[in-house]
């Protein structure tokens, strides 16, 4: 039998009882906004796997948040300037940019005492797939506009939650702007679940955080 086409398996799956109470819209939105802790998120996933109605609501909630974050009409980079950059090159440039700023940032981080309460209202979204937001984030990062880079990366990651490389970039950027608790949480997840390269890099940045450094 093929698990995907087997009617019996589908019926068996449909007969499993729903796990726990339905979470409701507020919890689902909180899940996709990264506001639940891991235990709460796990319980919610378990429920979604066994409740088709809540799964439908969850997919809608995610679409809603992507739409809510995705229409920002404020391109910081002229259209077409970076859109054609291949992803592999972008990643390489990102790593290079992070490396170049690392030593200087270490000194700045040591004297930083206050966490920023507001970031610039500058989120970029031009392409349907969010690639432009990623490119713009890198431009911001290289120009030292770290808070704008973080905002653009958040937009990208919301539309591409499975892109661990982008999540790593976001964590590194958050270290740079002093959001070390958020960065540590994200890095800890990536250190366990990413591909080999992402895992290794996440562990390296975690070690850096433990030493009190920043990129």
């Amino acid at each position: 039998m093929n698990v995907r086409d087997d009617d019996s398996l589908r019926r068996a799956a449909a007969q499993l009882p729903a796990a726990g109470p339905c979470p409701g819209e507020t919890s689902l939105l909180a899940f996709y906004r990264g506001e639940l802790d891991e235990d709460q998120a796990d319980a919610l996933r378990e429920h979604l796997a066994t409740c088709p109605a809540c799964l439908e609501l969850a997919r809608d909630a995610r679409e809603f948040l992507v739409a809510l974050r995705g229409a920002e009409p404020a391109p910081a980079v002229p259209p077409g300037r970076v859109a054609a950059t291949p992803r592999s090159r972008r990643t390489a440039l990102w790593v290079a940019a992070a490396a170049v700023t690392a030593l200087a940032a270490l000194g700045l981080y040591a004297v930083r005492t206050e966490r920023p309460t507001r970031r610039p209202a500058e989120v970029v979204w031009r392409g349907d797939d969010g690639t432009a937001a990623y490119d713009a984030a890198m431009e911001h990062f290289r120009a030292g506009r770290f808070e704008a880079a973080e905002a653009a990366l958040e937009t990208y990651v919301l539309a591409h939650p499975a892109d661990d490389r982008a999540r790593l970039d976001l964590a590194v950027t958050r270290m740079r702007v002093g959001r070390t608790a958020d960065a540590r949480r994200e890095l800890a997840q990536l250190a366990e679940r990413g591909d080999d390269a992402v895992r290794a890099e996440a562990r390296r940045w975690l070690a850096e955080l433990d030493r009190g450094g920043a990129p």
Partner: protein
Amino acid sequence: MRPSFADPFDARLLEGVRRLRAGEPGAADALDALLRPRLTGYFARGPWPRDEAQDLVQKALVLVFTSVGQLRDEASFIPWLFAIARNVRSTAMRSWSTRGRWEAGGLELAGDPPAPDERIRREDAQEEARRIAALRAALGQLPSRQRQCLLLRVRDELSYEEIAGVFQLSVHTVRNHIAQAKESLRRRFGEVFGETIE
């Protein structure tokens, strides 16, 4: 835990809602400008044409502006807005579906009963029940993350990418969980029914 309204858009939205509730002049226009393009993105996903999507955006915004006084506090605006938008979209979906069926020749023509499942009719009902019970037990004994991913794949026919998005996991992780779940079922189910699982 990350605080609400921590990002730039949320901060602007919070401020816009606060100004509207305070009755400040120009607040409604500013909030309209902030929300309209975003709601357009949400309502664009539907079977309707673009101008109908704009009507739905307008309908949702009217509801927002006429009932914002009922909002408990600014921080609950996003769930509240989602409830409004979802309600407008669900109503439109039902209406569109009914209209489409009438246009296709009437409700009675569109609602043909499903064809009987030939395979089940041939099979012995007790054997099928035993088979489903064994599968249900096997599913129940899978590790939770494996079961969660497999259920969305089998029951809801989601792609790996969709599952990763819904569960906020990497595609790589989803792929691994499903492969492991299949392997467990293959071993366990094969012992019972002598079948192979692909």
